[in-house]
């Protein structure tokens, strides 16, 4: 069983949702970022999304755009991102790590070679923002061969006709992008999320994680009642940007984890 499947099985047994926390690799520098990454499981992150820095993050709002700029200015690269995952795996064998970003750095690496190298580093899944099902055929078979999950994004614009097309490639879990917009901006209403998640469940048995616009423990708790996971990114990244230390973002993750863990009690 993959780390991702195992983790969701454990969460189910504990009758709770998971906290999925996002940070950008190499933000604000390698050492600080590695401290945050290594500290995430103890702070209560159940799954980790690690951003692959890219010069042109077209689907991201200001917080994550700036994180990518800081990461690149500090020498960040796809190679560095894999090195960080390998380093993390020295101390944690169980927490799933999902890389999230844009396709060009992977294409430049070579899709097949990258899948193999990512698996060696200990990567469990990939979220590629600009690789819709229409183009995913050039990457997905290589990921399957390397036992890496391709996590698909569904959005408020994914209707019942579109969902089966998107979900055809899916494994691991489904990431529901709860607003039609960029990261770190507006938040969806509870009823909108509820409706969307139930629609997704008609088409798949995979766990559903909800992201975009979740900033506070209360919001995370609300989502945790509706889905298998709540994704928080921009809020953590913003705290890291303000303090430039590993402690403050980990403290926020702790608060978010409490929100998620207490949601179904």
């Amino acid at each position, binding site marked *: 069983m993959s780390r991702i499947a195992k983790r969701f099985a454990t969460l189910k047994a504990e009758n709770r949702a998971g906290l999925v926390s996002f940070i950008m690799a190499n933000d604000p520098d390698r050492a600080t970022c590695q401290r945050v990454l290594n500290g995430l499981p103890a702070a209560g992150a159940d799954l980790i999304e690690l951003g692959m820095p890219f010069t042109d993050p077209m689907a991201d709002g200001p917080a994550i755009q700036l994180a990518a700029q800081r990461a690149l200015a500090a020498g960040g690269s796809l190679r560095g991102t894999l090195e960080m995952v390998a380093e993390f795996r020295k101390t944690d064998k169980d927490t799933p790590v999902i890389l999230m970003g844009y396709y060009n750095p992977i294409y430049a690496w070579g899709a097949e070679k990258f899948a193999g190298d990512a698996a060696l580093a200990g990567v469990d899944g990939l979220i590629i*923002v*600009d690789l819709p099902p229409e183009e995913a055929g050039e990457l997905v078979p290589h990921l399957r061969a390397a036992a890496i999950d391709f996590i698909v994004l569904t959005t408020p614009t994914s*209707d019942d006709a*579109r969902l089966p097309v998107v979900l055809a490639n899916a494994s691991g879990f489904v990431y529901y992008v709860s607003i*039609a917009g960029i990261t770190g901006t507006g938040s969806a209403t509870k009823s909108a999320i509820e409706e969307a998640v139930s629609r997704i469940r008609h088409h798949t048995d995979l766990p559903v994680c909800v992201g975009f616009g979740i900033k506070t423990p209360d919001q995370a708790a609300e989502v945790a009642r509706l889905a298998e996971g709540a994704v928080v990114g921009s809020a953590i990244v913003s705290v890291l940007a303000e303090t430039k230390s590993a402690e403050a973002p980990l403290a926020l993750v702790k608060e978010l984890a409490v929100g998620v863990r207490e949601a179904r009690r």
Partner: protein
Amino acid sequence: MQSLNTYRAGPDERGHFGIFGGRYVAETLMPLILQVEKAYAAAKADPAFEAEFRELLAQYVGRPNPLYFARRLTEAFGGAKIFLKREDLNHTGAHKINNCIGQILLARRMGKQRIIAETGAGQHGVATATVCALFGMQCVIYMGSTDIERQMPNVYRMKLLGAEVKPVTSGAATLKDAMNDALRDWVSNVDSTYYLIGTVAGPHPYPAMVRDFQSVIGEEVRAQIMAAEGRLPDSLVACIGGGSNAMGLFHPFLDEPSVRIIGVEAAGHGLDKLHAASLTGGKPGVLHGNRTYLLQDGDGQIAEAHSISAGLDYPGIGPEHSWLHESGRVEYVSIKDDEAVEAFQQCTRLEGIIPALESSHAIAYAGKIAPNLPKDHLMVINLSGRGDKDVSTIAKALGDVHLGGLV
């Protein structure tokens, strides 16, 4: 796949020209992109759509514009017979308006009321603001703050036309960054908004659609040169940023083997320094919805382009150009900033025509090869736009010696 006996059949049904093109966009946008594709296919098959497009090109844009025999440039070059396709005489002063007319009609068919666009030199922004004024639609233009500074007259024109100009400060604050922000806007306003892309790039169907609307340039050239000379031209020369004026001129001639076709990229300070020559100095990658040649580093990070001409200052190129490059049908060359400035002055002084700095790249390359060609060689240069917008950039480039008093 394209069949072997034609260069004009692409893209395939998935929007691919060979390995180039495609639809590399966020899932939020995919349903809308598919709608645009469907709506465009329906419009293309509708004679009423075509008739309204042609009517507006004639009555509003002022087409056909002349294919002008440039006697003094011909004499100065001392070889090939030089013709200028006068896109600069279109309403709003560049070829950009052709595509904007087509797409605003499509946006109206799709029931969209809000139009967004990116712009580099401001010509596409002005053309978009113009058609939005004409059709009474809300208009938001994304423009890099670097470009706003060097193209101030166009910024003010857009504002006068009722558009909101949003400055973009990320990255180098030029065309690439403006396109990022336009895509972010689109993802956030999918229901209300139509993205009017200004060049033959972006996700399918944009590269093919923009090419189709711009092909009026090449179609006219074909009829005009037949009328003037009784035969096809021997060569075509056009500048390339994203490549829409070039594709519009080239496409109707791709299957004429006797016609030599040359695209001129911007070599900026030089190919070993900062430049914008994606085909000459880049490699295939994925950005802004399509796979195409991109300026990038070994890690797949996109490099900043440089050209003195804001309209060519982009690290990518339309995917069909990438395919024509690899297939060898079109020659792609490059011209440096200083060579373009020189050609700008030459055309202005000799012909009394102030060309856009973008088009000046094409003139400069023509000036390199024309002297060695026979006098009966017919060469068509696409004069894609007028250069009034570039006067202060030129004054700066020339310093106090010539026009310094202006800056």
